[in-house]
Structure formats: C-alpha cells, structure tokens
C-alpha cells in the first residue's frame, strides 16, 4: 500500500451524481413553483428541449467534476501513516498516523452496491474535524487498507484449510443477498489474495460472527426501541417542507382548516392516539432498516459490527479503545428483559447515538457471557449494587415534583374547564422521581467501577480504573445538611469526554469511590 492508490472508478459516478443532485436541489427548490407551472403546460411549451439540455449539461459538468476529483484523490500507507491527497482547486494532504485512528468504518449505499464498492471512513480522536472519507474503494482494497493500517494480528488462529472450511460453511448458511460479505464469506474466493498481500498475517481469526440478530428479533427490538421521538423530529422536518413549498401550502392549509373546524376534545384525543401509533410503527420500520442483519465479529485486536438493510455499514473498533460499556434497558424492554449494549469509544464525536452499538437486543441474563466474550476488560461476574440511602428519596421526589406542581397549579388556575386534565401529571412525576431514586446505585469490584442511573430507561455503566480520566465529588448546601453528595467521572469519548454520575449518594461512599480512584503505588492492591 506504499504506492499511491486511486479510488475505484465508480467514485466518478458516485461523486458526479452526488454533486448533480446537490446542485439540482439547490436550483429546483427555490424555483419549484415556476418549474411546476412550466411542466403543467409542457405540451404547448417550446422551452422543454432547453430545459432538458440544461439538465444534461449540468449532469455532464458534474461528471467532469467527478473525473477531476477522482483523478486528484489518492491514498497510501507509508510508515504506518495513512496519507490522503485530494482536492481539485485547493489541494489538500492529510496524514494520519495509524495509532491515532479510532475506528475504520465501511459503508454501502445503494449506488455502492451497484458498483460493488464501499465507502471507507477513518475516524480519529479529534472528532469531526479529523474525518477522512474515501468515497468508493473496492471491497478487497478496503480490507487491504485496513490490514495494512492495523497489521497487529499475529498468526491466524485457524489453519488455512480449516479457515476455508469455516468460510465455506458460513457462505452456505448466509443468505445470498448478504452484502459486505468480504469479511467472513469471501475469504473463500479471496484467500489467495490475502496471502499475497500479507503472507499469513491478515487472515481474520474470527470469521464467524460472535452474534447475529435475526430479522424477527430486530423487529421486536424496533417495536420496543422507544425511539418514537425520532419519528416526530422527522415529522416536524416534513412539516416545514410542506409549509415552505408554495404549491403544497394550499393543500396543507386546506387540511388544517378542516381539522380546525372539528376541534373537539374527543377528536383531538383520537388524532393524538392515531398519530402516536403511526409514529410507533414508523419508528419501528426506521429502526429495522437501520439495524437489520446485525452481526458482530471479534478477533484479538478489534470488534467489527455490521448492520443495515438498505445501506450496509461496518464499523471496526480496536478493543483497546473502548473506554466503558453502557447497558441500556429501555422502558418498553424492561418487562421482557432485553437490553442494548453500547461501547463508549474514544474518538466518536457527533455520531455517538448509533455508532457503537455492540448488541441491539440482548437478553439481560446473557450480558455477563456476552461481555466476557466481546469486551472481557469490562466483564464482571455478579455486580453488587449499593443503592442510595432512604433520605435521598425525598430529594429525588422534590426535584421531579416542583415543575409539575407549578404546571398543574397554573393550568387549574387559568384553564377554565379542562385544567383538571393536567392532574395525572403529578402521580406520573412522583413515579418518575421514585424510579430515579429506586434504580440508582453504584459499586466497585476488583478494578471495575459501575454506576446505574435511571430515567425512563435504566442505564448501567461499567468502566475500569485505568479508563477514568477524572472524577469529582460535588456537594450543594442542601446535600451537606443531609450528608449526601454527587459523584461523577469522565472517560474519553468524543471531544469533551463522556460523563457519568450518581446524584445523592452517601458522602462517605462518594469519598470511598474517590479514594479508590486515586493512583496508588505500584504494588498490587489486594483483590
């Protein structure tokens, strides 16, 4: 990989189409009404050949730009450093030392599938600023790039013929539509190539996924994901589009005035319920598309996750870079005992939400075994959690009740007939505050520190002493009167780090954790 490589020629089309779409969007959206009116009198109008010619010229220009960009963009690996040169007008050179790379992602959109290429994204600790994306690289080249950046693996753990057999088995058992299959499957075809690249080195030791989530499980996960909120944000985006586009605005206002005429509480309730169900189903579909065919591979050095129905995405994370494990039990999943496992990874900036899911839908009782296999640094046998003292409960309840009580008082006072409808907010808030107190806790075991916090979801965070970047005790005046304190620690993640904490634990316990985190002399502490 030391000589400069070009991207796969498919990059020309992908870049070209992308910029054509972008320019097209920029032109079409402001003139949408005009174009619509032109189109409606298409037969009588003699402009349309010109329009067509303009569109073709635009596409041609975009393709030309694509060719130039493709021509200029090269990448290579020299001295354990990824060097990318690109840019047509402004030429840019980016050098990234391999040890600073936090993860290598492979991504496949629809266009990538057509050309059988992948997009390679290289992320470093600096966050969004230090991101490098190679738009289109053939799958073989992508694997080769990864292998030459992270050659850490020693000899393959399986003898060659056995590895071949395993690969063949996997190939049979996996559906033909499976994309990004180079990692486990194509070793059968590309085996010779691997050997020629790096004799005996680059063969992944784990060619069989450690875990795999079936479609029905993914749908269950989607139904219980509790990401209904995501749908509403999408909906509000849609609303603004409808609201802004002139021809659609009439439709929108017409529908809205119909709704307004019939505003009565029952109708509103029905509407809200219908909307909620629609949002729930839509978020399920969205979730399923995003997380379908989830698979996780593990070898000595790294974790590789793979997911997605339409655009496939593969993320490789060096195991050494994982800073903490977060186990999240969503509200809807608690009755069924399923959790989602996240890795807090040094170096993901803005994409934290879904970038590092290690398992989207794991049975609670399988968590210890899963961690032992996947992230052994963070596996604990049976965590014993110390709960918060009883006198913290009052503080939790007061904190969650203040705002709802104000709200209810105000609505009772100012909304004449329907004010009492807000009353259920109070027991709701009470329940929420009680939950937060009931499920919060902390624990220390060996070199592990773990905390549990709860909102609607329960979150269990595990880290080890050497991963903690800083920690703090905080105490307000009221906490001092009750001999309580809050404890927080930070691990590296993104630019500002990830902070986890428990509010209102015993002050002596906070001090105990603080003292435990203090660096101590070399001798091994008694376990």
């Amino acid at each position, binding site marked *: 990989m030391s000589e400069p490589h070009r991207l796969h020629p498919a990059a020309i089309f992908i870049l070209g189409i992308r910029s054509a779409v972008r320019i097209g969007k920029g032109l079409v959206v402001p003139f949408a009404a005009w174009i619509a009116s032109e189109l409606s009198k298409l037969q009588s109008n003699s402009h349309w050949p010109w329009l067509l010619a303009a569109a073709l010229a635009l596409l041609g220009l975009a393709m030309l730009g694509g060719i130039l960009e493709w021509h200029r963009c090269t990448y290579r690996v020299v001295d354990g450093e990824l060097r990318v040169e690109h840019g047509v007008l402004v030429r840019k050179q980016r050098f990234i030392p391999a040890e600073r790379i936090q993860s290598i992602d492979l991504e496949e959109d629809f266009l990538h599938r057509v050309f059988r290429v992948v997009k390679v994204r290289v992320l470093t600790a600096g966050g969004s600023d230090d991101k490098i994306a190679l738009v289109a690289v053939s799958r073989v080249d992508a694997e080769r790039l990864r292998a030459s950046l992270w050659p850490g693996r020693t000899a393959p753990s399986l003898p060659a013929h056995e590895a071949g057999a395993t690969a063949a088995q996997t190939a049979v058992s996996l559906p033909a539509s499976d994309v990004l299959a180079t990692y486990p499957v194509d070793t059968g075809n590309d085996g010779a190539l691997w050997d020629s690249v790096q004799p005996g080195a680059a063969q992944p030791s784990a060619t069989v996924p450690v875990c795999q989530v079936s479609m029905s499980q993914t749908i269950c996960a989607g139904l219980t994901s509790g990401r209904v909120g995501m749908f509403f944000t999408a909906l509000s985006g849609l609303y603004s589009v409808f609201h802004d586009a002139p021809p659609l605005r009439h439709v929108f206002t017409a529908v809205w005035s119909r709704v307004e005429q019939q505003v009565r509480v029952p109708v509103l309730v029905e509407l809200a319920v219908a909307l909620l169900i629609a949002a729930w189903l839509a978020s399920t579909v969205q979730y399923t598309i995003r997380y379908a065919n989830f698979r996780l591979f593990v070898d000595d050095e790294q974790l590789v996750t793979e997911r997605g129905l339409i655009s496939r995405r593969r993320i490789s994370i060096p195991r050494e870079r994982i800073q903490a494990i977060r186990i999240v039990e969503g509200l809807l999943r608690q009755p069924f005992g399923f959790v989602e496992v996240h890795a807090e990874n040094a170096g993901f900036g803005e994409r934290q939400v879904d970038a590092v899911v290690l398992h989207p839908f794991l049975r609670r009782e399988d968590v210890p075994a899963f961690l032992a296999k996947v992230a052994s640094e963070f596996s604990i046998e049976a965590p014993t959690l110390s709960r918060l003292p009883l006198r913290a409960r009052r503080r939790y309840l007061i904190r969650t009740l203040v705002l709802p009580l104000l709200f209810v008082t105000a609505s009772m006072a100012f909304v004449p007939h329907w004010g009492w409808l807000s009353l259920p907010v109070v027991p709701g808030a009470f329940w929420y505050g009680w939950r937060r107190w009931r499920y919060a806790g902390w624990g220390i075991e060996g070199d592990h520190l773990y905390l549990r916090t709860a909102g609607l979801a329960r979150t269990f965070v595990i880290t080890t002493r050497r991963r903690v*970047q800083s920690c703090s*005790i905080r105490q307000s005046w009221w906490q001092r009167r009750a001999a309580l304190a809050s404890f927080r620690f930070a691990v590296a993640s993104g630019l500002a780090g990830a902070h986890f904490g428990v509010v209102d634990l015993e002050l002596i316990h906070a001090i105990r954790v603080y003292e435990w985190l203090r660096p101590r002399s070399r001798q091994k502490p008694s376990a």
Partner: protein
Amino acid sequence: MDWQSQASEPIDPRALRVWTITGIVEAVSTLAIAAVLAGLTARCLPWLAKPAWIGFMAVALVSAWVSACVVPGIRWRRWRYRVAEREIDLVYGVWVVKRTLIPMTRVQHVGTRQGPLLRRYGLASVHIATAAGHHEIPALALNTAETLRNRIAEWAGVADDV
C-alpha cells in the same frame, strides 16, 4: 465530614481583585438589562410602570451585589489545589462545592494562559487537558503558574504548550 481539606494551596490573593472587576462588569450589564426590560414594560403597560421599575431594579441590584461583592470572596476562599506526583486535586465552587481528581497519567497537555486582565495583575491560569475535557487552576502568580506547569509536564511526561 471533612473531605475538602486535603487540597491545601490557595489561589493568589490578587485573584480576588480580578474577580471583583469581572463581577462589577457583570453587575453593570445585569443592571443595564434590567433597566431595558423595565423601560419596555413601562412603555407597553403604563399602569405597571412603577412596580416594574421597582421589581426589576430590586432584583438586579441584589444580583449585582451578589456577583460583585459576595461571589468573588466565596470563590477565592474555596479555591484550593494540590499537585502531587501522581495526581492533581482541585476544590472549588461557589454554591456547589466540587472536588476533582485528575490522575497524573491522564494529563495530555498542560499550559498557562493569560488574558489581558490577568496580565495586568501579573497572574496566569494553568490549563490541564485530559482525553475527556479540560480543567483550570485560575489566577496564580505568573512564576508560580509557570513552575506548576513545568512540574505537571514533567510528572505527567507530556510536552507543555505555553
């Protein structure tokens, strides 16, 4: 229970003056904002003019007094630090007392900073960055800050950026 006294070094006394100045600036802007708000209320709702002026100005005066006279003193008295070979211990906070531990091995950069106001009084702050955010010891005498920076850099085994 005493959990704050292990950090022992105080901040330079001149910090008090710097913080008082920033507090006064803050207080003046609070008063200005309150005056604008009260004026607007008086313009729009003339019958509320008197209570609005009295209310806004009372709140603004109290908060101005707090930020210029009370807060700097508490902050200065509270601030303590201790830099040992293996760890940095900080105690600070006005309404909420915080104590922060930074293991020396986690320090990535350390540097000193000097704004115009700090320079005027011959002070500097020490800036300590870890992989998960940064911390600051504010307002030390310039040579104390520089010695501290060099010592942290040596113990942490990192380059210091000035």
